[in-house]
């Protein structure tokens, strides 16, 4: 019998197919990265350039022209704050529903999810009017509150499905051993829930960072997030592709890298723990 080669043909075919599909799907993003390091002329050259001497001028110019750092700071502040606030509201609710289940629990969960089905634009006029009369237009506070509320249903759902998987017996055993409510929470529940809290927080962070509708409509120069900054580059036929690419790259790089590191937790979270 002939010795099996280390690379059977089927494996080679599969490897080639997988890489071809991947590179095809990743191509637009890869192109964005390349363009960010080109000059404006190179960016629109026909045929497109694959090899060139990279320049960092675009990044410098984006910062100088439109104060990237201010928008980046707004993005960080609003997404982190809304994630923390969201966890603070969602975790107790999810805990309550998972461990003290009643007949209404399922209805409440479904009702929460249904608030998420409503397109944000449906609430735009009222929220705009409210924000205006409260003097909250173009403030970080308004964005934090709105990001939190719009992510809240998803967060409650995710945490609920995580908490539901924690066996009640463990908590009961702790109680039998005379643990106080605080000890039970601190020593038993929290360590078990930390994974769920992390994956929920991660997803909330990604969603808030990428949120465009509310930041476009409720914020501008002062509290605008990176999504606002990028949209301002859509100006009519503004053929500043290299700068647009540099700005885009700076806007997405933090969250894409962050996403790479947390993809496992994200799957857990996104599927409400239904897919393992």
């Amino acid at each position: 019998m002939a010795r099996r080669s280390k690379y059977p043909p089927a494996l080679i075919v599969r490897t080639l197919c997988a890489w071809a599909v991947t590179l095809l799907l990743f191509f637009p993003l890869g192109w964005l990265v390349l363009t960010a390091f080109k000059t404006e002329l190179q960016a629109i050259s026909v045929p497109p350039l694959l090899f060139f001497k990279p320049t960092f001028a675009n990044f410098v110019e984006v910062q100088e022209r439109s104060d990237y750092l201010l928008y980046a700071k707004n993005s960080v502040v609003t997404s982190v704050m809304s994630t923390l606030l969201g966890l603070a509201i969602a975790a107790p609710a999810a805990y309550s529903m998972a461990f003290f289940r009643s007949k209404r629990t399922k209805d409440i969960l479904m009702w929460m999810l249904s608030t998420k089905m409503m397109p944000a634009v449906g609430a735009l006029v009222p929220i705009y009017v409210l924000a205006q009369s409260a003097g909250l237009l173009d403030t970080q506070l308004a964005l934090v509150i709105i990001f939190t509320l719009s992510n809240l249903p998803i967060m409650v759902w995710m945490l609920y499905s995580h908490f539901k998987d924690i066996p009640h017996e463990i908590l009961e055993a702790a109680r039998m051993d005379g643990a106080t409510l605080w000890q039970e929470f601190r020593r038993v529940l929290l360590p078990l829930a930390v994974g769920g809290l992390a994956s929920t927080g991660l997803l909330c962070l990604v969603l808030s960072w990428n949120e465009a509708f509310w930041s476009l409509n409720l914020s501008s120069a002062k509290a605008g997030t990176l999504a606002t900054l990028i949209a301002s580059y859509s100006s009519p036929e503004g053929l500043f592709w290299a700068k647009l690419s540099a700005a885009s790259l700076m806007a997405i790089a933090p969250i894409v890298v962050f996403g790479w590191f947390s993809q496992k937790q994200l799957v857990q979270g996104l599927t409400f723990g239904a897919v393992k």
Partner: protein
Amino acid sequence: MKRLLPRLLLTPAVASLLLWMIVPLVMSIYFAFIRYNLMQPEVTGFAGLENFQYFLTDPSFSVAVMNTLLLLGSVIVVTVLFGIGIALLIDDPFPGRGAVRLLLISPFFVMPTVNALLWKHMMMNPIYGVLAQVWKFFGATPIDWLTDFPLGSVIIMVSWQWLPFAALIFMTALQSMNREQLEAARMDGATYLQQLRYLYIPHLGRSMAVVVMIEMIFLLSVFAEIYTTTGGGPGDASTNVAFLIFKQALLNFDAGVASAGALFAVVLANIAAAFLIRMVGKNLDK
């Protein structure tokens, strides 16, 4: 105490979501019945059903409803089919699988405004865009995507964003397949199609339900991609319900009509939610 604590813990979430739902809803109902145009502050008073009539008989309306459904339907079909394909393709180990996973998932984290501008300018531009170059390379006339296929272009952008999501969920689900069962089927000479039909697809049922559910929630209100690329045009060719309401509110400054539209969106959302609840109830209940 036993009953008080759970309720107390639940209250902040329920109360804030209730406010988030009810306050805009009540205000929308009020605005929908008055004449309220930000450009004509002197025109006021009770409008009756005028705003509703205006919104529902607007020729853009039926187009927008169709576009919303088309966008939702095609993106779900594309992402589920290709997502399963990709997941099956990279299910078994091969050199560079880890890197492939990272590259594949990346588009999901790209913010919609960047996604839209990237495709609009660098991919779909009819003169300098990469796709135009590819078309020319094959001797074909480049397509002016956003003008000739506005809704199709938006579907491509949104699918590109959500395909990684679907693929990632299916990849994860496949890892929990019963390998012994699969081996046994192969030993018994099951063809790949038979394995697909009787083993893989049934196993993926639950994750398909999850993908459809999450995508429905997010795709009903696609906005940034339309706002930054076609602006709903040309004409109404790429206007969905969310964008139509936005146009009434911020481009026509007619808060009354926009509010009537918002109430319609609530009805649409409730229909979708009812549909989802049945599906989720069946598939996610443990």
